[in-house]
């Protein structure tokens, strides 16, 4: 992005701000896992009580869902006017 855009665009979307947002997000992510060191998480079934279980589980299941949607998309996605064109 050019110098010009950087100055005139909304402060929230400037690359410098976005870099900071990522850093803050990273720290917050770390804190939520670190909090488990001080708070006893029992878990109902064993594995769900491990340190960072929810972090890993949340991340991995979401990645899996996005990938599954991607694969399913190849099968079921059709151009926008699919139904309208069929009616002609």
């Amino acid at each position, binding site marked *: 992005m050019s110098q010009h855009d950087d100055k005139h*665009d*909304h402060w*929230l*979307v400037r690359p410098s701000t976005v870099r900071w947002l990522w850093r803050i*997000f990273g720290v*917050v*992510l770390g804190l*939520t*896992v670190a*909090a*488990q060191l001080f*708070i*006893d*998480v*029992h878990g*109902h*079934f064993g594995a*769900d009580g491990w340190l*960072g*279980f*929810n*972090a*890993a*589980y*949340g*991340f*991995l*299941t*979401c*990645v899996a*869902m*996005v*990938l*599954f*949607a*991607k694969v*399913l*998309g190849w*099968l*079921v*996605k*059709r*151009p*926008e006017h*699919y*139904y309208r064109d*069929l009616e002609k």
Partner: protein
Amino acid sequence: MFELVIPPAFVMLIGAFLVAVSRPGLRPVIALATPLVTLWAIWQVPDGVQLTATFLGYEVQVVEGGAARRLFATVFAMMGFGGVLFAFRQAKWYELAAAMGYASGAIGVSFAGDLIVMFLFWELMALFSVVVVWCGGTFGSKRAGIRYIIMHLLGGIILKVGIEGIMIHTGSVEIRALALDNFDTWLVFIGILVNAAAPPVSAWLADAYPESSPTGSVFLSAFTTKTAVLALMLLFPGQPLLIWIGLWMIFYGIIYALLENDIRRILSYSIINQVGFMVVAVGIGTELALNGAAAHAFAHIFYKALLFMSAGAVIYQTGKHKCSELGGLFRTMPLTTVCGTIGALAISAFPLTSGFISKSLTVSAAAEMHMTWVWYLMVAASAGVFLHAGIKFPWYVFFQKDSGLRPKDPPWNMQAAMVLFSVVCIGLGVFPELLYGLLPYPVAYEPYTAEHVVTQTQLLLFAGLAFFVMLPFMKRTLTVSLDLDWFWRVGWVRLFRAFEALMNGLREGVGGFVQGLLRRFSAELMRHHGAQGVLARAWPVGSMLLWVALLLAVFMILRYFPGV
């Protein structure tokens, strides 16, 4: 002591009628006052059967009170108020009246004391809701409305046949827990599930709702599926099949929302996902789980309406409804952005929002019953909710790229409705006892434990990380996603065309053969009897005389032989 109970559904219905016939100046006053008067009437209904009437020779129970019934009716009336506030200056008078009639159907089902009354209000909902779909006013909404009403009338017929079966075989139409052990109860079960957007007919919801007007979809998001949840709670609590149906709905909603480009269609798939959680809860069927289903329905109606309001505001202001055309609207629509984000956080069940205190009841119920798989799947789905609705919706509409659009926030009444519902979403999250006090069973559940807050925040934030890491995989495409509705929108039409072609072929084949036969027959006829035919030829009189003489001669000769 005898107390007069006013059926709350009738209050709403009369209001809808008055809105339809009143002068334009008076209309907003009636439309806004009606849900409030209805709310008052709802809270006048004590527990137990309150009002009976005679219908077709049957003693029917028009109004029966109860905690779950009151909770659902309350949220329907409040939704009516919020929806009217959002819509009254923009929507056509007939959309407003139809939406209120629709709400009255939902409230009527909530208080229905028996299956007959339930069915009548059920159909009322179908009829009024299709008018709301049609108020979209486009060619697409007309077609979608027709598909929608066919689906609901079919579901209604299945339900009606089931109810009649129960009436004949047991002699009672009481609303009570039914077992899935005969044909009649199965039909009732299926009829209700059609309205809950359960598989295999889930597609009707995402087909019809996004075709309505920006104001209409706010009403549509609330009533039909949630009355189905209440009906399941009253008729089939603890039916294990519901757990699997619900889980299917949960993941179906997430995956299809991830594929979608239309902002209201994303939210529609998300309704199916959320109703899935409620259906699972009804399937688990413990007191904690049923509380969870009711609480989630209550919280869901507010945040989902709020999300549809923010989407409606964007569509109303820009005329655009695709993720690929929107983006960067936070610059000029700050209030809509904030309210839409609050709705998104609430649906994701972030701490301090209504979703946090309602969804956790259901998830805890699964843990309490040691349903390991159900629990793990629901937790994954909770992360998935943040993924498909919690981030995807606000990200693509208000942030992502700059679309160059600079619309203002919507008119004041739309803003007021969004602020009101945002306050409710956060208010319920901060003061859970407000909702817990209304639940059908006593609540001994504390949502705000350090453990719960930490695990939930961890889950959601890392789901958020997954969203941004996977963004390249979620590039918006100008596509629709095929669903099982392909079979009745295209498949059976093709089947019919093929049958038609076969029949045409047969007709032509048989016709050609018969025609050939006829042609040969007539040719033969012509050969013998035609103008030149041997039997039609003109014979000279002389030859006739010759033949007559010949015959006479033969006759005479034969006459001389004895015995002839």
